[in-house]
């Protein structure tokens, strides 16, 4: 398995702020990788370093076996980028911008262009100044998806799209993955990443706090278990890896460490199970776990 993007210890400072503070990221060839984090976590900065638009202050960055700062012209032929904030030349039409960006990248597929325009319901004869935010986003998406490239760098690509267009977008990304393209998708929309991404990196304040497949990540967390039993669930609360137990008669509700789930289920079966639901953690819960202290209140301001 080769890597399309590998970043280690990446630091990027803007004046006194450290936008990226030792970030690690690995995107394997052929996967859809979700870069997940709230606003200001460093997602766009990471992508702009990968594009060679920003210069890394420290750390190593490899993109398609090249140096993104040095090998711009060769690397950029092999990738397409959709910025988070799409701003277009007001006096050019959408069609002209799509063709221009495609040609600058080294050509685009006219059939796919026509297909994308139809599916995204985009009028290419409109001047860019008249497009809404979502339509500007579609122009950038069509230009990127119609290009024959190995890697797509998408920075919150669906921020302005309606749910129907969002579905079209997901369809194309799934199709692209099946054709062997690599996709790095930054987002704060958890359901989107959950639906599309093979692997996820969660970043926070310029650092990667967690990375892996959703299964990997879930492994480190707890599964919610609700069971109706034949007898009162005595002794379950004392088992290792069982948390937040609520008992009402013969009914049990508990959060179980995923690697202890087998033991707990055996114990429950012994007691006699009438009904059982096990819910794996959603990405949202994973995400909240990493940001829980932030939600609880600003803890950065520890008095010196």
């Amino acid at each position, binding site marked *: 398995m080769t890597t399309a993007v590998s970043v280690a210890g990446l630091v990027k400072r803007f004046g006194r702020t450290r936008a990226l503070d030792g970030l690690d990221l690995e995107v394997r060839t052929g996967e859809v990788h979700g870069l997940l984090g709230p606003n200001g976590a460093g997602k766009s900065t990471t992508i702009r370093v990968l594009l060679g*638009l920003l210069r890394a202050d420290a750390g190593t960055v490899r993109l398609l076996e090249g140096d993104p700062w040095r090998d711009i*012209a060769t690397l950029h032929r092999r*990738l397409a980028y959709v910025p988070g904030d799409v*701003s277009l030349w007001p006096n050019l039409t959408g069609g002209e911008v799509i063709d221009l960006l495609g040609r600058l*990248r080294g050509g685009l597929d006219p059939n796919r262009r026509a297909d994308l325009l139809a599916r995204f319901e985009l009028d290419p004869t409109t001047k860019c100044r008249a497009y809404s935010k979502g339509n500007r986003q579609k122009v950038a998406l069509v230009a990127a998806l119609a290009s024959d490239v190995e890697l797509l760098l998408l920075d919150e690509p669906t921020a302005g799209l309606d749910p129907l267009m969002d579905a079209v977008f997901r369809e194309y990304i799934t199709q692209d993955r099946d054709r062997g393209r690599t996709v790095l998708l930054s987002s704060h929309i958890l359901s989107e990443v959950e639906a599309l991404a093979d692997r996820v990196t969660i970043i926070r304040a310029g650092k990667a706090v967690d990375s892996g497949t959703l299964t990997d990540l879930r492994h480190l967390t707890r599964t919610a278990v609700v069971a109706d039993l034949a007898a009162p669930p005595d002794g379950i609360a004392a088992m290792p890896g069982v948390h937040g137990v609520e008992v009402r008669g013969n009914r049990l509700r508990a959060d179980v460490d995923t690697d202890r789930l087998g033991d707990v289920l055996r114990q429950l079966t012994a007691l006699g199970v009438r009904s059982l639901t096990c819910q794996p953690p959603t990405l949202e819960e994973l995400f909240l776990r990493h940001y829980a202290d932030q939600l609880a209140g600003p803890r950065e301001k520890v008095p010196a």
Partner: protein
Amino acid sequence: MTALLGTGALVRLALRRDRILLPVWIVVLVVSAAGSAAATIGLYSSVADRVQLATTVDNTSSLVALYGRIYDVTSLGEVSLFKMGGLGAAMVAVLTLLTVVRHTRTEEESGRLELLGATPVGRYAPLAAALAVAMGTSLVLGLVTALALIGVGLPAAGSVAFGMEWAGVGIAFAALAALAAQLTRSARIANGIAGATLAVVYVLRAVGDTASAGGPTWLSWLSPIGWAQQLRPYAGNRWWALAITLGFAVAATAGAVALAARRDLDAGLIHDRPGPAHASARLRGPFGLAWRLQRGLVLVWTASFVFGGVVIGGLAASVGDFLTGPQAQEFITELGGQQGLINAFLSAELAILAVIASVYGIQAALRMRSEETALHAEPVLATATGRIRWAWSHIVIALAGSAVMLTGAGLAAGVARAADTHDARDIARVLGGALVQVPAVWVLIGIVVALYGLAPRLVSAGWAVLVVFLLLGELGPLLKLRQWAMDLSPFTHVPRLPGAPVTVVPLIWLAVVAAGLTAAGLAGFRRRDIG
């Protein structure tokens, strides 16, 4: 009035954003006026000297066309400020028109006004705030200028009239820009409309002022610059002329308000039509894109330069018609050459065109910065286009565009001159005079590129550098500046052609300096962050 609700807050916002820009403009203009007055008072203390100079100016069509007429040949004030009356007023007009468009159409085009418009802000508040700032600035400028001129020893009433001449032009063009900002969705085009109007009314008064008694002298009365000059500071102070300017401002403001009342946010009177669904074959690489973005500007500027060249070449024949006395000859010679009044006139006018071509060059080179800050550069640089190639696409248009304009003006002036003299060699002579200016213009483009690469936030300082060079050339000899200070300006080194001997060495040096600055800028741009 709810339509004006929030105007005060918007005025404070505008003043906060322009807290450096506006004071700098005011200081530069006041210092120029007071400096040239102070220097002239020392040089022309005797009435006879002033009469001599003023008569010479009034009898030289090219000077009258450029600066305006001196109405009282004995007046110390008029002789001191004859250069600053018309040209200075045009600079004030540029200041206020840029200010108004910057706080109206630019805000609207960028979408920032939408954010503000959703707060309790009245429909006319942004327009009213922009006009209040621009007109207030004009008044402050007028008052400070008047005080400074009184301070250096000119008569009080005339000084106030001079200050009001400037303030009136500022107010008139603020109103005109407000009108232009309603017509189009693009701030760039709004600036273009207001700027072109300024150029047209400047030419109108030039034609009116130079017309003979039976000719179209009334043309001067169609021009806000003409009305301002008809105030005649230090030569009768005809205050009623101010009323025309203010009446025009009121009418233009009313027109702007009427248009603003009828249109939607982010709309203009000129509507967009659908364009091509596919890019043409020419819109290919970064150069195709840069040309597409800048071609309108290049064509309009080139056409204006050709027109300017025809006017200059045609006027040359009338130079020196009325000249008498050796001192008059000396005065003209001082303006820019050694042999022949016509050569001196042509080389002086071509030098002015070079300054104007620098305005284009700076504007074209600054496009790199506006493309970057508008996030237009990012998607292009994310393609196979390298940074240096992208930067070159805009630099080449600035360099080639300014060269083409000067060539066009030189050819047109040469042909017009040759039509008078029936000597085809004049075409080459005049064209040569225009071409030697090109390296000096390139130095200014080089300065902008260097700033862009090395200190992108300071890139607008390119304008300040041009103003300094311009003032060094216009006022340096009067203020008796040292040669090294004059040498800072690239325009000092240009041989005064036609007429003077052709000296190639300074031209090579200018080209080397321009190349060095460009290389330094590109090296810096290669290393820095985008955005």
